[in-house]
């Protein structure tokens, strides 16, 4: 545990020095507030862009508040995941390439400690940033569109946070498999895309696939109660993430820093 905290603190320090603690939260806030604002100003934007024939009017219905919150979530599922994958691609592979990993591991630091501490540090950074982003999005939705209860925001953060945790676990696993950061980033994104494609194809069988988290969150927000499927999906997501993490420790150990 002491060891874990040491490696963890070192990661935190490094994230601070790299400005990660500044830019990752800011990017997440940016992703969160762009959609509420642009949806709110959509009529004006269309008007100023022009191209409509004279006298043409059409009503754009104001979307219900929870739909706008879901738009922000859709941003995270695309650009957010991209940022997470690219940010974490050098996590272990970069250190192996530059030899820092060897410097750490000649000391009596367990492989498992090294991997889990790094995984934990990225998770803290991403989940805090995601919370800041959701909070900003929620604030704008309440201001411009109407009430979404804070409890629902917290649940949305919790359940969608699991999806981000899943992405980070994939990234850590890929990090232990390959030494080239670019390849790690690419494979992580590919893995996420394949997960969604498989979920779409076998939609009727894979009721609890991690890729379905956002769909169930939408149901939760519109109906106001947590569907049972959401809990199942959450459990499966945690399970797969744990399995990936254990696999990551295992491959890291057997690869012998090759």
């Amino acid at each position, binding site marked *: 545990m002491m060891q874990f905290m040491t490696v963890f603190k070192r990661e935190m320090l490094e994230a601070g020095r*790299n*400005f*990660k603690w*500044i*830019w990752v939260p*800011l*990017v997440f*806030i*940016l992703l969160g*507030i*762009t959609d509420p*604002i642009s949806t*709110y*100003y959509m009529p*004006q934007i269309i*008007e*100023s862009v022009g191209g409509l024939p004279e006298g043409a009017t059409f009503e754009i219905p104001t979307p219900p508040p929870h739909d706008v919150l879901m738009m922000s979530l859709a941003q995270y599922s695309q650009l957010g995941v991209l*940022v997470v994958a*690219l*940010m974490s*691609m*050098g996590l272990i592979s*970069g*250190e192996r*390439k*530059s030899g820092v990993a060897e410097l750490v591991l000649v000391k009596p630091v367990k492989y498992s400690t090294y991997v889990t501490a790094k995984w934990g540090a990225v998770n803290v950074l991403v989940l805090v940033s995601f919370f800041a982003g959701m909070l*900003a999005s929620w604030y*704008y939705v309440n*201001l*411009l569109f109407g009430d979404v209860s804070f409890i629902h925001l917290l649940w949305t953060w919790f359940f969608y946070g699991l999806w981000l945790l899943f992405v980070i676990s994939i990234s850590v696993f890929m990090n232990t498999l390959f030494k080239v*950061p670019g390849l790690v980033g690419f494979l992580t994104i590919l893995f996420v895309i394949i997960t969604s494609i498989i979920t779409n194809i076998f939609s009727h069988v894979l009721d609890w696939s991690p890729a379905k988290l956002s769909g169930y969150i939408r149901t939760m927000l519109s109906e106001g109660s947590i569907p049972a499927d959401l809990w199942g999906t959450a459990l499966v997501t945690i399970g797969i993430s744990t399995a990936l993490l254990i696999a990551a420790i295992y491959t890291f150990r057997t690869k012998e820093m090759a």
Partner: protein
Amino acid sequence: MTEVFETINWALVAPLLVIQLILQVVALIDWFRIEHTNGPKIMWLFIILLLNMIGPILYFVIGRRQD
């Protein structure tokens, strides 16, 4: 066009601009301090300065050396 500017509530949009500014400034500070970037260093200066929003993010994600 001026009408559009008047109808926009700037208090709403200001945070976007502030965040964009902070990102740009932080990216610039980092650009000054860092020795090597991925690709020519001067290229990243232009990317940070000229591409709104995306420029600084691109710099942090791709421009900084991963090792």
